């Protein structure tokens, strides 16, 4: 089949950028979306044109490096799927696709479809961890975790940090990302001692990074490739209110 692409091309952070039209003939239904872009790039190189820069690494849907907007939807039309795991069998001959980078003030564009997601790392550095230096933990079975808690914690921990939630949110809020980490650690007994400190520090960092606030729209949940649930944001808000109340005056 033939696919028509309109790809965001931007040389660097200072360039204004714009959409450029390309045709990719002979797309196989078994190709992944990124393999289709590989084919486009090989073709561009053959014509001495600069290939499209896009982030990708594992191509198994777990590293969280890939992703772009496909016709305005982060990671494209298939729910619960990263761009690298989206296959061309979900498209048809002649489809026109508009590819744009994640757009958020906290994620500046570096080149073409590549953005800087360093703000996510700084959110984790602010408090998304349990402070246990190597060697100080007790025996694994000394800490019992009810299976249901462990399962719910794992549901939240599945977040791959791709940034689709921020890109899709009209407010460019990082609430789903933060909520996922806060729920992952807050559902476990190991995460309790730092629970309040964690949420306070992460929310403060999100504000400093100029992520927007959550207004419960739910676009993030709809595009999350790991299907992280909105309830993690509710948990974060509850923890935040509790922490603000407990720590008042400090």
């Amino acid at each position, binding site marked *: 089949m033939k696919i028509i692409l309109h790809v965001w091309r931007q*040389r660097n952070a200072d360039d204004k950028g714009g959409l450029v039209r390309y045709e990719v003939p002979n797309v196989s239904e*078994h*190709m992944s979306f*990124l*393999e289709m872009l*590989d*084919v486009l790039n*090989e073709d561009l*190189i*053959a014509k*001495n044109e*600069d*290939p499209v*820069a896009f*982030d990708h*690494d*594992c*191509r198994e*849907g*777990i*590293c*969280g*490096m890939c992703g772009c907007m496909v016709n305005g939807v982060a990671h494209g039309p298939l729910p619960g*799927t990263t761009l690298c*795991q989206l*296959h061309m069998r979900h498209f048809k001959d002649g489809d026109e696709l508009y590819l744009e980078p994640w757009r958020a003030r906290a994620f500046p564009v*570096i080149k073409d479809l*590549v953005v800087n997601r*360093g703000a*996510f*790392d700084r959110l*984790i*550095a602010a408090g998304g*961890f*349990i*402070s*246990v*230096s*190597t*060697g*100080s*933990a*007790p*025996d*694994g*079975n000394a*800490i*019992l*975790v009810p*299976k249901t808690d*462990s399962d719910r*914690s*794992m549901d939240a*921990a*599945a977040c791959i*940090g791709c940034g689709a939630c921020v890109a899709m949110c009209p407010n460019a809020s990082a609430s789903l990302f933060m909520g996922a980490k806060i729920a*992952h*650690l807050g559902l476990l007994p*190991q*995460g309790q001692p730092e629970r309040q400190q964690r949420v306070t520090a992460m929310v403060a960092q999100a504000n400093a990074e100029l992520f927007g606030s959550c207004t419960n729209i739910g676009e993030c949940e709809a595009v999350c490739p790991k299907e992280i649930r909105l309830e993690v944001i509710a948990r974060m808000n509850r923890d935040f209110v509790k922490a603000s109340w407990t720590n008042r005056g400090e």
Partner: protein
Amino acid sequence: MPLDSKSPVGPIETRWDRHRFSLKLVNPANKRKHTIIVVGTGLAGGAGAATLAELGYNVKCFCFQDSPRRAHSIAAQGGINAAKNYHNDGDSVYRLFYDTVKGGDFRARESNVYRLSQISLNIIDQCVGQGVPFAREYSGYLDNRSFGGAQVSRTFYARGQTGQQLLLGAYQALERQIGAGRVQMFPRTEMLDLIVIDGRARGIVTRDLITGKIESHIADAVVLGTGGYGNVYYLSTNAKGSNATAIWRAHKRGALFANPCFTQIHPTCIPVSGEYQSKLTLMSESLRNDGRVWVPLKKGDKRAPNQIPPAERDYFLERKYPSFGNLVPRDVASRNAKQVCDEGRGVGETGLAVYLDFAEAIHRLGKPVIKERYGNLFDMYERITGEDPYQVPMRIFPAIHYTMGGLWVDYNLMSNIPGLYVAGEANFSDHGANRLGASALMQGLADGYFVLPNTINDYLASNKFPAADGSHAAVREAEANVTNISKKLLETKGTRSVDSYHRELGKLMWEYCGMGRTAEGLKTALSQIPGLREQFWRDVKVLGAGEELNQSLEKAGRVADFFELAELMCLDALERNESCGGHFREEYQTPEGEAQRDDENYSYAAAWEFRGVGVRPELHKEPLTFEYVHPAQRSYK
């Protein structure tokens, strides 16, 4: 060059404890005066950087991805081994040690493997402490499952995302140190050369992948945790960015490369679908716990799998290996799959696949149980192939997955260049000729959390580090080398893309240095690789400039190194006239088609010294002795 493994002697149970006591310590107040460079942020590098910073060292940490959380350790699915014996099924530190030495086909150092087994206990504790959501029993205790190559249940897991969860644990520990200012993190920065001053590793030269800026970083020690080199084959289960450049350029600066031909083929990958294929996807071999592997009995049987009655199916692993059945180690499972496909009994469009069938397990346990155990793997399979494995058997085929070889290191994880440490898959140390399932995560974390932070003290405490800066001749020379490589690649302006050369090299390697190797095939590869390499340098087409984000230039540098490494792998495979583990030389097999080792002549680690591109490297041998686990032919029957 004498290779001193610094392996302790005496009772194996106390070797690590006695060795640790003999190592010098660095006073806490002096630790912050030392800077350590860590390259790579996977389980080994990430855990190492975090732990060294916790101890008080200044750490500079580098990764080529946009965040330290992306390293390919993240893709490990199945689990991590530990000899906790929580299930009272006969496991022990000694049994894990025994299984690993035997599984490695008697080509690993006993001292290292024993230490790994001991440390496996601490790893689980540490990870639980960090909040890794391991699977639990209803009682709240940790759950385990069994895995290929073992008859006990010692594998801890977090659904099918164990690597992800362990890596996030290490990443969060690392971010905590970054936030505290004890680690300076350099994402999107690639190491392109090692700086050696007065015979000691003192720094690295890097390229900022956004601006293209070439920079030098000086330190008292350098740690490489940069992973394996499976992408030599182009198609592998590695991430697209996984590369050998850091270890290869260290090799060119004098670090010995050990056992390069020991590569592992993973039996349960999704088969290739076309020429455009960019990588292969692995599915955890935990699938073999409940899935049954089979092909039709008859050649060329094109019926749909559900049309083939049980009597006309060949469950070849269960037939040939009744006691281990579908759980035989990876190399055995892979070779048998290749064999039935070579016989013309392969399935699917290409005939290069075998079935992995869950029908019986679904019947026995019910769909919800199977979904609970393997749900995400089944979803992944369906996304890629468009087929529902709850309804039709999966099609699987072996693919390159892991490399046991790597830079040679002693018991302290230090290479032959003083001050250069190598951890995780990047070194050659613990898995011999074949790695058992769920042991890569164990080794990466053992090296990063527990081994390296202990052994590096001794080096720092025993040496003086004269100040060095960018004006030093060795630094300027390394920077010039890096600049020249980029310049040459950009100025070639040839006709073919980097990927087209990489694919061609990969095909050659898979054909002649893949699952089955022969002297004749290896000689063919050795005669073709140099020509292809020279053609690459004459004809490669890299567009754009060096002072910008240029993904073609990044790839070109890595592929240039793969060409040189490929030649060494073939040479090593040709030199080793025996079959062992993942290295299967077709000339050396038992009458039943199993690997035939030659302990008399090849019970050594082959450590190669670089002598120049296209010049035969020099082989150094580290003899291996087995005091505890006596070499025998591996039998899984």
